[in-house]
């Protein structure tokens, strides 16, 4: 494992398998009465979230707590950042307080990388701008492997705003590494122009793609990143690229519906589709804790002198 997790590119296929296998063991911990193990006792994990987040922050917090690490939550509002302290000074402060790992969410792409130049702690990217969200990608890979038994050869469509989606980027990199067959589907304005060089296919017709899928992965329409008008109206988007009940019925038997959350019910996914049994959106959340436990454990559990 690398020292930091900034991008899915930091992981080899073997690393990914190791993370998923380790997460498997942590899943079991989550089913116990006492959902806690002492593996990272005495380590300090700082959740440094400069952009709104519910599930990722809580998931990282639970993951660290279940490993018995001490967790500090640090958000922009109500902190020195609100007083105008720079990212660098804030990072150096966290460093001086002895953080062993910093989990960062930031609206600027590349800020986790920048952070690694200032601190000695392990840095985990929890979403940076429109760049990457590798822990989300890993928990999605875990969920697909858990439900379908494999990743190699899986036919996965990632549907929606690929251009602004850090989830799509991390997930597609991971899927391609693991030998899955990935198709991006969305309005042409929201597909990166160089997408085919990522090792994926591109399609603009969701109806043609759906009957051939093992996984239909719906992305959230990110209203906060729509600075320009990329599509005429939300209604038109929902009609062309939303997973309606009729479209979901065209999915092959056993295919999964996934969504990274938070969902816009009625936009990218119809409300009753989100509640279907093969929509594994809550499993993604549960698996997120185990996957993040595995990452924290693998990154913080080593690092000493060789030999026991």
């Amino acid at each position, binding site marked *: 494992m690398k020292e930091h997790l900034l991008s899915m590119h930091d992981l080899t296929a073997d690393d990914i398998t190791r993370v998923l296998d380790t997460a498997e063991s942590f899943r*079991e911990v989550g089913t116990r009465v006492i959902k806690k193990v002492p593996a990272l006792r005495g380590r300090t994990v700082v959740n440094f979230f400069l952009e709104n987040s519910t599930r990722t922050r809580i998931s990282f917090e639970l993951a660290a707590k279940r490993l018995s690490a001490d967790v500090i939550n640090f958000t922009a509002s109500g902190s020195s950042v609100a007083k105008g302290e720079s990212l660098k000074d804030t990072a150096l402060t966290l460093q001086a307080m002895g953080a062993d790992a910093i989990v960062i969410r930031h609206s600027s792409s590349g800020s986790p990388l920048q952070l690694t130049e200032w601190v000695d702690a392990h840095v985990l990217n929890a979403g940076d701008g429109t760049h990457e969200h590798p822990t989300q990608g890993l928990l999605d890979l875990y969920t697909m492997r858990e439900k379908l038994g494999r990743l190699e050869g899986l036919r996965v469509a990632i549907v929606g705003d690929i251009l602004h989606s850090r989830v799509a980027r991390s997930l597609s990199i991971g899927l391609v590494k693991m030998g899955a067959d990935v198709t991006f589907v969305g309005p042409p304005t929201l597909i990166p122009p160089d997408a085919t060089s990522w090792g994926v296919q591109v399609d603009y017709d969701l109806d043609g793609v759906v009957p051939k899928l093992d996984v239909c992965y719906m992305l959230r329409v990110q209203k906060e990143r729509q600075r320009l008008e990329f599509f005429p109206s939300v209604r038109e988007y929902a009609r062309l690229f939303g997973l309606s009940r009729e479209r979901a019925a065209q999915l092959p038997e056993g295919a999964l519906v996934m969504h990274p959350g938070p969902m816009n019910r009625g936009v990218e996914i119809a409300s009753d589709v989100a509640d279907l049994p093969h929509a594994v959106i809550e499993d993604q959340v549960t698996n997120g804790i185990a996957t993040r436990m595995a990452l924290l*454990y693998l990154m913080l559990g080593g690092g*000493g*002198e060789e*030999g026991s």
Partner: protein
Amino acid sequence: MSAKVMEPDDVRRALTRIAHEILERDKGVDDVVLVGIADRGDELAARLAREIHRIEGPEVPVGVLDITFYRDDIGLRAEAPEVHETRIPFDVSGKVVVLVDDVLFTGRTIRSAMDALTDLGRPRKIQLAVLVDRGHRELPIRADYVGKNVPTSRADDVRVLIEEVDGEDAVVVEGAR
């Protein structure tokens, strides 16, 4: 240089004797469960359960415990120790839990195992069965059932081979002498 200190027959006899000892000490196996420490210990636990079944008939529940998260050397090694599976499909509360491991050395694994076990419930008793006790304890821990006491030097490497994993039963001491 290496020396085989137990042959397949020795391993079989030792496990048969331990199975008898468990039956005798615990007066039957009504509340007894076997928990093997991954890896190797789980195979030995399964083997002991079969022996107990052969001798007196009852089926003893068998679980496997991974102690990785409870180790006291996490962070002291370069790489995080590899994680195995924990699978204990029964409640350990109120039970006599016989921990099963291949080699008893410093005792640190057993300490971790006891911590792990008490996080899963409150056993009435915890006992320890090992195939080999090689000495050099660093903690006040002793085994209730021992297959063979093997005097070793601290630098020796004691390896237990199990038919299910390694293709044959044997205990080998690889010496640094």
